[in-house]
């Protein structure tokens, strides 16, 4: 059986007035994927995401979620089944943190004790102080508000989570924490996540599937390492490469793939099993050794092997 994509966007064009925000876009996202939409501002990435919960209606083409054409579904029910977190968070200022988090469960008619239990779980999942539930949003820091926003998006345990630049408005340290949190949540829950970001590093770090947009079209669509590989399209390499596309490419390839059958010299530095080629290169540069060992492997990782990734 061929796995159905959980999100299927087929030949969609979105027209706002006289301009096309999206032109004939096709995108499939499989269940459990972490898919990042990257591109400069105005490239249509947010519009593409908002098609999924019908905040945007296509002028042409079809959007299917879980195999059903969204145009045939009632919008409120569809939206309640999909989590949504955004940069401006949009917490309800007159409602407490707990009430904010419990919004969708309440719309779905859960009873009060069940909502209370779920809110408690989510505060723990997002590592928020349980006592924070009774506070109003104005008492939260930017990072806390963002965590509450993500908890609210996860409240009814949706299988799909849409995140529109959720880490854009917080300081760099908080952003790093939130990214790690998101990766952990994805690993623990196996949800399908669609993330809009203008930060290429964020996309490459988090996603298993990266989609690059420009002027309403998809420029590239694939695994992160493939999009910065030397044979990728120049615009994509430039956008994602961050000035040193070669190094970024190596950082996305596993060092295990360059294992050489020759054993590592005695006393050579050891790499972790999940190290990337860029990690290996960094250790080589620091140690001055010719070859490195790897934990649990007999062979070695050598400079020529790392640089041979191209071949």
């Amino acid at each position: 059986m061929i796995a159905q994509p959980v999100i299927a966007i087929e030949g969609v064009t979105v027209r706002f007035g006289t301009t096309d925000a999206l032109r004939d876009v096709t995108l499939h996202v499989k269940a459990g994927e972490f898919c990042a939409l990257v591109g400069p501002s105005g490239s249509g990435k947010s519009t593409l995401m908002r098609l999924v919960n019908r905040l945007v209606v296509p002028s042409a083409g079809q959007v299917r979620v879980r195999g059903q054409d969204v145009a045939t579904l009632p919008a409120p029910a569809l939206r309640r089944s999909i989590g949504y977190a955004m940069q401006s968070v949009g917490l309800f200022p007159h409602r407490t943190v707990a009430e904010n988090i419990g919004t969708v469960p309440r719309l779905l008619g859960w009873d009060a004790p069940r909502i209370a239990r779920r809110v408690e779980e989510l505060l723990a999942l997002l590592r928020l102080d349980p006592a924070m539930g009774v506070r109003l949003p104005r008492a939260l820091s930017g990072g806390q508000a963002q965590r509450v926003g993500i908890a609210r998006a996860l409240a009814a345990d949706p299988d799909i989570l849409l995140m529109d630049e959720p880490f854009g408005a917080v300081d760099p340290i908080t952003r790093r924490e939130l990214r790690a949190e998101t990766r952990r949540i994805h690993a623990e829950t196996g949800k399908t996540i669609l993330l809009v970001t203008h930060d290429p590093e964020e996309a490459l770090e988090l996603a298993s599937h990266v989609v690059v947009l420009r002027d309403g079209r998809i420029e590239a669509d694939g695994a992160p390492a493939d999009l910065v590989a030397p044979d990728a399209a120049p615009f994509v390499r430039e956008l994602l490469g961050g000035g040193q596309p070669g190094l970024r490419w190596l950082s996305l390839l596993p060092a295990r793939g360059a294992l050489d059958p020759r054993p590592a010299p005695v006393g050579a530095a050891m790499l972790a099993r999940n190290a990337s080629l860029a990690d290996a290169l960094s250790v080589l540069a620091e140690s001055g050794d010719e070859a490195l060992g790897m934990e649990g492997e007999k062979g070695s990782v050598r400079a020529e092997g790392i640089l041979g990734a191209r071949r």
Partner: protein
Amino acid sequence: MILALIAIAALLLPLPFLGVAPNRLLPGEGVSALDAAGFWVAVPVVLLALGAWRRLPGWAGAAAAALGVVAVLGLAGAAANDRLADLAPAARASFGAGFWVAIVAGLSLVAMRGAWMGLAVAVGAAVLWAMGGLDRLSLVVEATARADALQSAIWTHLALAGAALALALLVAVPLAWAGFRRPRLGAVMGAALSGVQVVPAIALFALLIPLLAALLRAVPALRDLGLGAVGWLPAVLATAAYLALPLWRSLSGGLASADPAAVQAAEAMGMTEGRILAEVRLPLALPVFAGGLRVAVVQAIGLVTLGGLVGAGGLGAVVFEGLSQFATDLMLLGALPILLLALAADTLARAAENRLARPA
């Protein structure tokens, strides 16, 4: 400090404190506070001075000032009893400039040092009245003689103001919603409603009479519904026309004040338009709307006064009757309750507003 000085000066200088006249229409002969009350003037003077003394805590200062105001009133009442004792029953004692200056300055002092002590002034005045201490003052004589008419005028006044407010809400709420959904329409509404404010109130009240008369001629069936070109109808319509602007403006402003991100989030989480209105837009609009409602209530109580000119009755009718007879006390009899009603409405509405503005 300066307020106490003004009040004391009004009591000690040879200003007319009380006017004594043979009947209610003739101008009176002025009597100064010193002449009227003799050394008893020292009582309010000392109390008012204490009220301004900074070493006293606020509540004590306010209490002294409040007692001072009551003492001024008491002196006026006693002086009236005294002066009119030998005169015919038609003779009147009315308040003079010195009395008004002392009372207004004294009340301002109370308001500055502790406004809630205003209650003590009201209680003090009521006690004086109950004990007969004010019986010969012209205002009290007038009020006693017209007690029933005055009471029904107050109720009519409140009913007219309430009806105008209800009508204005009935118009402003749907207009605000329509203007919110279509901003261009909203701009037109704003201009039209502001245009009404430019028309002088008296002109609008008067203008409605021929307009309504023409309408009733054209559609006589309306007459059977109890509508008339004079009376309550033009008063309520004209007042409502003025109230529509503050209500509409505060509603529109309140609806627009909701954080767009919160509204967007509500939509994205699957709230229907009706739920977004009920759960997000209206709760966030309420504090802004409460401010507009307060303005409208106070304006309604004031504007309905003009209904006295178009046969609607109410306290305005009392004021205008006093004006036409040049009977100052009758004017005051109408005007003072209007002032008190407006102050009371403002205080109540402000308290409600503060409650709404405070987070739960």
